[in-house]
């Protein structure tokens, strides 16, 4: 198939490797080495998109990251990706892309009506309209939403892989143009660890687009030699296709490497993208510059392109985007385009130079080829519906001339890519000669080299690069640098640009775009200024200039220069909007990396997890832990299973995996003193070999954690914590020890994971355990601990119970947990041993009124509120004590823990039910607030009680026992009676533990 705009030779494409691809369903052919944009241009396709707001036909404006127009929907199905810049998509065989934001087709787009209605749609029109009638706003809004947006999100989960990498280096060089390569070479030769990152698929930067020479040979030969040397240096890492997107504090930068995964999907191990998180001691920014467009009426038609990009397509891709070319410029650089195009056989209709004079070497060269150069020439309009076909030019006050053409190449000079420098908190300065911002004082270890500093020539770019690289390496201690000679270049002098021509536009005429992406025009900027949105940040937010996918890379400078002129102040005073990450849009997948599914967050399992699984347990998530919830038998409902488990514990024998509880080994001569400061109840009275339930408060007096702690010996304790609190409590202990009480001689060590712990509970537990252990169970009082062995395994046996039923807990080394568990199961068989899960555990403890931190408490509950006054020691210091004396903690109408009994024993209140004092007719007064008296914290059916039971926090609850409250439930009111929070054997109240 023919590629009408492909030159016969030249460029860096592989002419031997044709690649076929589709755009909007049509087949085309390009070459390896093409981008989608260059391949489309080779096929003379200029119309590629519709604009965001007015749906104007748009073509390819640029050649790189700054492209505001040519965004396409790439790929299909799960791989489809919206808003891909055609200028950055490397062509591959079978590529398929669609244009966006048009219906029904790119050439016939209904949305283009907006262009006609544009008088009604100035900047911020929606703030002024759609307010009446109020009821219709949501309908209007639906319409607005449908119009907005560009491409479509995929519907299926992304099948691709993403990776993230930490990297460290002495010198990070961003950009592999001449300046960056020179910097990398200097730093690399000095022996520094260097990373060079460039967003393009090939190193060389602007040189790829030019016909420059270095040391008398084509510049790209120098690039090749330099790359070869860099690759041979062991401490240099070259990252191609890697945009550095963010520059954070402490010289931490984030980049994204595009891997050629689009082409190699079958390799599922190859990630699509790799995020680089780089910590650099020194950074050299050699990020080059972006060409500045010109503002004039209808400056957005397909076929209107940036001049250097036109030259780039020609030199790099062998594509001549047009045959009859008008060049509009405010700088000498565009004359290179004229020369190169003319050399490739295009006809240059004229060069319209906005400057009053164009007398430099390059204009001379152009003139000497017989090309007409108009000076002081303004573009006052363009023609052509789907592609530019004429340019209207006016010189001075003379008559307007229409120049027929199929390509208009424009150049408003260069804007240094200061994005990263600014992100680094570097100050920007305004370079009047360049008419653009350049890096000023740095605040991090960063230097700039090349065009990013405004260096106009290759010679300077190279020199600055070598200098910056060597100096950065030297600051890292690599200062033995072999002398580097800067290779000579031959370059013509350039005459100064006149940046003021770029943004001013022309009064009257069609729309003059400042921001192509968001369709912001000169008129919009004027309107914003008129209405008082005349600070740059207000201008941005009111007009949305710079808020599009290109983040104003092409448009921002013109917008703010225009604003400065409207306000009559220097550009520097207007300032820029804030440069923010990312420099280029960054896939969420790359940011998340491989952290998905099982790797999203660790799942923690106990040593006996496999057994539970094999025995049908369902699991409950408790923090990161999976805990057995209940063990349903075939055809059993949850309620039936839990009832069975609960009955078994009270009647015979149950067994629970308690391994997830936190366990902290605390030892040292001051251990008792320390623990006494941590818990609100007293431990100094606890004898070695005994255990006690302890309650821990925060400094504000609120309950923070609880658990049973054992005094193993005089100076040695084993503290237990809640499952979720294990890490938190250890951190809490260390914090107090290290920062407040460093003189206390105490060591804390987490042993949570060292032990598997099994609770056995029920009247038969001693019968089962006694034959298995050398511990004298008869000699163990409640709340005591012994060392010994169980089933031949060294073990610690605690006589404690969280169910109120007689119970023991046995801890063995985690590696032997399964052995212990299965032995107990075997030995318990004749007693009807029943494994029970967290649900039954919750019911059982609720029957006794034992609290669960995080369920009965929520960070606003004191021990007094829980009726645990007895646990609050008056005669010692403890954390949180002072707060309990505050007025609010002593209020008598605080929410306090009580039990609840529903009128009907079968009604189980949902946890989270709120309680009210008086009956209320909700049907009659649905919209008036009703005062609440408290809420249900725990609620279950208790098979042992033969009825439902609940715990609740109720205002002044303790003084209200016996009273009736109401629970609104699905439109009904359920009567509940307040009771003491204990439903079983209240007389024989076992102390918790």
């Amino acid at each position, binding site marked *: 198939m023919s590629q009408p705009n492909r030159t016969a030779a030249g460029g860096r494409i592989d002419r031997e490797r044709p690649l076929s691809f589709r755009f909007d369903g049509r087949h085309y052919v390009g070459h390896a080495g093409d981008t989608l944009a260059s391949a489309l241009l080779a096929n003379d396709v200029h119309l590629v998109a519709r604009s965001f707001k007015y749906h104007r036909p748009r073509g390819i404006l640029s050649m790189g990251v700054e492209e505001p127009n040519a965004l396409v929907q790439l790929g299909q199905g799960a791989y489809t990706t919206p808003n891909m810049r055609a200028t950055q998509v490397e062509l591959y065989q079978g590529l398929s892309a669609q244009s966006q934001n048009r219906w029904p087709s790119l050439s016939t787009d209904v949305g283009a009506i907006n262009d006609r209605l544009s008088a009604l749609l100035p900047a911020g029109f929606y703030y002024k309209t759609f307010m009446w009638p109020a009821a219709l706003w949501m309908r209007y809004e639906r319409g607005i939403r449908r119009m907005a947006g560009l491409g479509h999100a995929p519907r299926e989960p992304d099948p691709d892989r993403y990776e993230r990498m*930490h990297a460290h280096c002495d010198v990070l060089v961003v950009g592999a143009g001449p300046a960056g390569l020179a910097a990398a070479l200097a730093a690399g030769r000095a022996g520094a660890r260097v990373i060079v990152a460039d967003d393009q698929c090939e190193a060389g930067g602007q040189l790829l687009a030019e016909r420059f020479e270095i040391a008398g040979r084509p510049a790209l030969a120098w690039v090749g030699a330099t790359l070869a040397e860099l690759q041979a240096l062991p401490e240099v890492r070259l990252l191609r296709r890697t945009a550095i997107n963010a520059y*954070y*504090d*402490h*010289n*931490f930068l984030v980049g994204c490497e595009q891997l050629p995964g689009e082409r190699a999907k079958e390799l599922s191990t190859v990630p699509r993208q790799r995020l680089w*998180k780089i*910590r650099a001691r020194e950074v050299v920014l050699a990020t080059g510059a972006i060409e500045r467009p010109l503002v004039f009426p209808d400056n957005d038609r397909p076929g209107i392109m940036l001049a250097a990009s036109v030259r780039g397509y020609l030199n790099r891709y062998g594509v001549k985007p047009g045959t009859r070319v008008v060049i509009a410029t405010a700088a000498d650089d565009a004359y290179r385009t004229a020369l190169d195009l003319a050399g490739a056989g295009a006809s240059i209709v004229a060069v319209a130079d906005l400057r009053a004079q164009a007398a430099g070497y390059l204009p001379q060269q152009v003139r000497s080829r017989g090309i007409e150069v108009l000076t002081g020439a303004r573009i006052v309009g363009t023609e052509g519906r789907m592609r530019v076909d004429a340019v209207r030019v006016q010189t001075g006050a003379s008559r307007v001339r229409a120049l027929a053409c199929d390509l208009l190449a424009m150049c408003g000079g260069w804007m240094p890519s200061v994005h990263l420098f600014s992100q680094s*908190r570097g100050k920007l300065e305004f370079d009047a000669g360049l008419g653009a911002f350049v890096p000023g004082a740095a*605040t991090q270890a960063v230097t700039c080299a090349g065009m990013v500093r405004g260096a106009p020539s290759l010679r300077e770019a190279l020199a600055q690069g070598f200098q910056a690289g060597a100096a950065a390496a030297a600051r890292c201690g690599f200062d033995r640098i072999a002398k580097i000679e800067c290779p000579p270049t031959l370059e013509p002098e350039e005459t100064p640009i006149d940046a003021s021509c770029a943004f001013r536009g022309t009064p009257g005429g069609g729309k003059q775009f400042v921001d192509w992406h968001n369709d912001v025009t000169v008129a919009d900027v004027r309107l914003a200024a008129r209405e008082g949105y005349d600070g740059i940040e207000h201008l941005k937010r009111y007009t949305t200039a710079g808020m599009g996918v290109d983040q104003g890379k092409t448009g921002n400078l013109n917008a703010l220069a225009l604003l400065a002129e409207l306000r009559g102040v220097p550009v520097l005073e207007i300032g820029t909007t804030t440069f923010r990450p990312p420099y280029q849009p960054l896939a969420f997948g790359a940011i998340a990396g491989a952290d998905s599914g099982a790797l999203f967050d660790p799942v923690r399992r106990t040593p006996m997890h496999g057994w539970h699984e094999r025995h049908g347990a369902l699991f409950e998530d408790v923090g990161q832990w999976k805990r057995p919830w209940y063990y349903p038998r075939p055809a059993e409902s949850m309620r039936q299973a839990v009832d069975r488990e609960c009955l078994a514990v009270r009647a015979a024998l149950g067994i629970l995996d308690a391994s997830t509880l936190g366990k902290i080994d605390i030892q040292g001569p001051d251990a008792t003193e320390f623990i006494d400061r941590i818990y609100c109840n007293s431990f100094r009275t606890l004898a070695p070999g005994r255990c006690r339930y302890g309650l821990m408060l925060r*400094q*504000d007096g609120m309950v923070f954690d609880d658990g049973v702690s054992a005094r193993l010996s005089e100076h040695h304790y084993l503290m237990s914590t809640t499952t979720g609190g294990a890490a938190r409590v250890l*951190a809490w202990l*260390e*914090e107090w020890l*290290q*920062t*407040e009480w*460093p003189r206390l001689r105490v060591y804390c060590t987490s042993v949570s994971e060292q032990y598997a712990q099994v609770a056995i509970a029920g009247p038969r537990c001693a019968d089962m355990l006694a034959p298995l252990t050398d511990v004298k169970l008869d000699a163990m009082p409640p709340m005591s601990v012994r060392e010994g062995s169980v089933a031949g395994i060294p073990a610690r046996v605690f006589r404690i119970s969280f169910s109120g039923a007689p119970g023991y807990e046995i801890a063995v080394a985690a590696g032997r947990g399964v052995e212990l568990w299965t032995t107990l199961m075997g030995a318990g068989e004749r007693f009807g041993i029943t494994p029970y899960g967290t649900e039954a555990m919750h019911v059982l403890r609720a029957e006794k009124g034992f609290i669960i931190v995080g369920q009965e408490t929520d960070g606003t509950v004191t021990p007094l509120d829980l009726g645990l006054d007895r646990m609050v020691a008056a005669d010692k*210091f403890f954390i949180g*004590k*002072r*707060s309990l*004396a*505050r*007025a609010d903690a002593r209020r008598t109408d605080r929410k306090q823990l009580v039990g609840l009994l529903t009128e009907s024993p079968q009604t189980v209140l949902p946890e989270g039910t709120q309680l009210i004092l008086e009956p209320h007719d909700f049907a009659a007064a649905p919209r008036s607030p009703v005062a609440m008296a408290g809420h249900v914290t725990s609620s279950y059916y208790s098979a042992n009680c033969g009825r439902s039971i609940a715990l609740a926090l109720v205002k002044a609850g303790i003084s209200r026992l016996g009273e009736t409250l109401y629970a609104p439930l699905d439109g009904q009111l359920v009567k509940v009676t307040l009771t003491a929070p204990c439903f079983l054997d209240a007389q024989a109240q076992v102390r918790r533990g």
Partner: protein
Amino acid sequence: MLRIACPWCGPRAEIEFSYGGEAHIALPEAADALDDAAWAQYLFMRTNPKGRHLERWVHTHGCRRWFNVVRDTASERIAAVYQPGAEPPEDAR
């Protein structure tokens, strides 16, 4: 991402640490004797300066030691790290 020099382990990435708030807020000696207002000062009131801040960090995923840091809350520059209980180094004042 900050880079914090643990006094024991050397410079490490921020994600290895946890922040512990303003430093040098000592537990009052005789808390029981304080009035509610003074207690509230200890519990809740913070300097929260824009600029030089003396603060606590702990090397959670490293040596688990607490230490103090002098950091500028506007620029994120870290001027010094020092031991709990010590005064900030002279040159970081």
